[in-house]
């Protein structure tokens, strides 16, 4: 039997990264502050995890302005959506195999 763990995406091991992907998959775009509130992490922590996801091509960043304040929003990419879906499928398989 194939080991289902191999399909679990290492990048989504972190609670913060999983949280970011969960929020982006159901919203067209989410800004930095909203993500921070949802996932309950510090600025630095969130920024570094976002960076990892961006480098892997799972999220894209858009920098804009509201008035004079910067407003950085994040969107999920096609690759990100696919990776997230595969990760969920793997989780589902693992839980099925246990119960």
């Amino acid at each position: 039997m194939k080991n289902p763990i191999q399909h679990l995406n290492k990048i989504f091991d972190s609670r913060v990264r999983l949280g970011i992907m969960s929020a982006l998959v159901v919203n067209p775009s989410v800004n930095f502050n909203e993500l921070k509130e949802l996932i309950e992490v510090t600025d630095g922590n969130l920024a570094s995890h976002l960076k990892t996801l961006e480098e892997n091509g799972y999220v894209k960043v858009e920098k804009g302005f509201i008035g004079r304040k910067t407003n950085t929003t994040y969107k999920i990419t096609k690759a990100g959506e696919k990776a997230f879906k595969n990760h969920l499928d793997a989780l589902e398989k693992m839980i099925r195999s246990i119960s």
Partner: protein
Amino acid sequence: MDTTGQSNLDAIRDIRKIMERSSRFISLSGWSGIGAGLCAIIGAIVANRTMQQYYDADRNACFQCLVADLVLIASAVFVAALIVAFLFTYLKSRKDGVAIWGTAARRLLWNTMLPMVAGGIIIWKMLDLGYYELIVSSALVFYGLALVNGSKYTMGEVRYLGYAEIATGVISLFVISRGLYVWAFGFGVLHIVYGISMWWKYDRKTDQ
């Protein structure tokens, strides 16, 4: 269950929680429904008294003044209900530690305001043309549609309140002479029933 199984379950729970919290406005308090319903019932009592006075007076009483009074009462109730509903929801969002104004709130507002504004314009025109008989049912039906439309962006139960409002609005077409009672039922009783059941389901534990 072993530790990996447990951590996978935790991961799924986290995913679900964040999907829900990021796409729906969940701070809507049961007290908001109860408060808005009470405003509507007080308004209906005041309106009833105003109408009694009008019909008790002599035949030359000013009909336009009655209409103006009723519109004023309805508007005051609308504003009061909105303030009360907002207040309880604001308090709940403070207690839960979630921001009241985010993407979810914006989407909820847009999707409920759209049918309400369209309905509002139609009702305003009905008043203008004197189609008073249709106002109660139009208000209820448009409000119900607004709730059904908005329910995707807040607690799903709002949809059932919406269905109930639409049904009440349609029924009112056949009991036009009892319009004020139907109005009090739709905007008063239904809100209170909804508010109590939401309070029971979500707020009971945290309020105690």
